[in-house]
């Protein structure tokens, strides 16, 4: 029962995100790699940008600008380049949903 419902929910998730078989918590897990600097769940305690609740479009634009060099950075241009477009999409979607 639980498994079937879970799989059903997972199926919806896959449809909505256009994703194939992947971990049900992939977005959460990927976003957690940012938390060392940007705070748990994107809530910075100071000195770094908070990401929680920021719009996905704004976050994606920032990341694109870091990658292209349009936005000057000390380190984010090097880190942003380590994630795929699909991963950045998941990460920014997840942070946008955080209160």
């Amino acid at each position, binding site marked *: 029962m639980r498994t079937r419902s879970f799989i059903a929910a997972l199926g919806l*998730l896959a449809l909505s995100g256009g994703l194939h078989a992947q*971990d049900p918590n992939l977005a*959460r897990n990927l976003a957690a*790699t940012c938390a*060392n600097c940007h*705070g748990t769940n994107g809530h910075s305690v100071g000195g770094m940008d908070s990401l929680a609740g920021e719009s996905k479009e704004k976050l994606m634009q920032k990341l694109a600008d870091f990658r292209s060099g349009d936005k000057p950075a000390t380190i984010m241009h090097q880190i942003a380049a380590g994630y795929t477009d699909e991963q950045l999409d998941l990460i920014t979607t997840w942070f946008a949903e955080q209160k």
Partner: protein
Amino acid sequence: MLNRRNFLKASAIAAAAGAGLPGLSGSATAASGGARRHVVIVGGGYGGATTAKYLRMWSKGKVDVTLIERNAQFVSCPISNLVIGGLKQIEDITVSYDNLVSKWGVKLITDEATAIDVEKQSVTTAKHGTLHYDRVVLSPGIDFVPERIGGLAGNEERIPHAWKAGPQTVTLRKQLETMPDGGVFAMHIPRAPYRCPPGPYERACLVANYLREAKPKSKVLVLDANGDIQSKKALFSQAFERYGALVEYVPNSALQSVDAATLTAELEFDSIKADVLNVIPPMRAGDIATKSGLPLVNDAWVDVDWLTLEAKGMPGVHVIGDALFPAPTMPKSGHMANQHGKVVAAAILNLFEGLPPNPTPVVMNTCYSFVDSRNVVHVASVHQYDADKKQPMPVSGAGGLSPMANEIEAKAALAWARNIWADMLA
């Protein structure tokens, strides 16, 4: 209170909206599966404290977590070189475990784990008896093998390593304060791999920064067992040059023995008399890992499955942090241990659910080093799991170094510390 039906409804709604579901899937099993699961974590450093918090947060409190840590408070190795250099106090790098207990419901046992029994799934402690676990996470950091340097064992008060932050950090700082102007500060770096690749070079810089101000006739002698600077080479070379005659870097200087009475360091072809002698001894995975019968690589480091971070050949025993035999270019750093903690927390919660571990984990590293009181350099990397190689591999074209030492990253370094300490412990 979220019951299962509401959970599933919430799942469907959130999924339809394209949302991830942080935490909730972890709660479903424990809520419906009957017996509560118990994870015991050994070691409350960057890896273990992160694992404890994230297991509790992501399971919404449905998984019981016990953290066994021998020290009453967390003291950070990153930033500890600023204490040695006189720019920070030990209190500035000390953080309480209170929030893990009061806010996250972690059971904290201030004690030493002395043995793991894989058959019985139990951890034995020195003073608190034996604890049963469903899964155990060892985050034991490193322990030293001082016996490999003649005369070193048992003399750590006279010849501090200060490579585990705490009383040794303060001891080394006090020795520098009482050193006469014109004295020699000699430090020894063991062969790689060792904890925190850039750390010794940062320490040399910050000791030089202090001596330049306070005791300018003195000298910093860096005796490196390795053939070259192990991290941020160009940046540290530039920093050493800026200190001029104050810093002398000597590669291929494996320490043979020391004389604690005279503070003499014996190299293969040389003998050096120091006023303060800081020997970072050879090291390996923390004692609990080496005593638990885990298969070790090079008799030193634990080999793991990189999807679950389970020790090879030891089901149910996960190992993270500096104790690991690292994947290619993966540093032994606090930042990386924190990342391991999140991977292992996610994997354990999946396994409790009967789900496979995340097949595509990602970890990344950021490391800042001070080269003087105001200027900092970084190295960063991103590591994506490679299914063919069965380990995380550094992403080519990503990561990198600061172009030069700069003041902007000094602020970033301190903000990094505040945020990662909060990510582990707040």
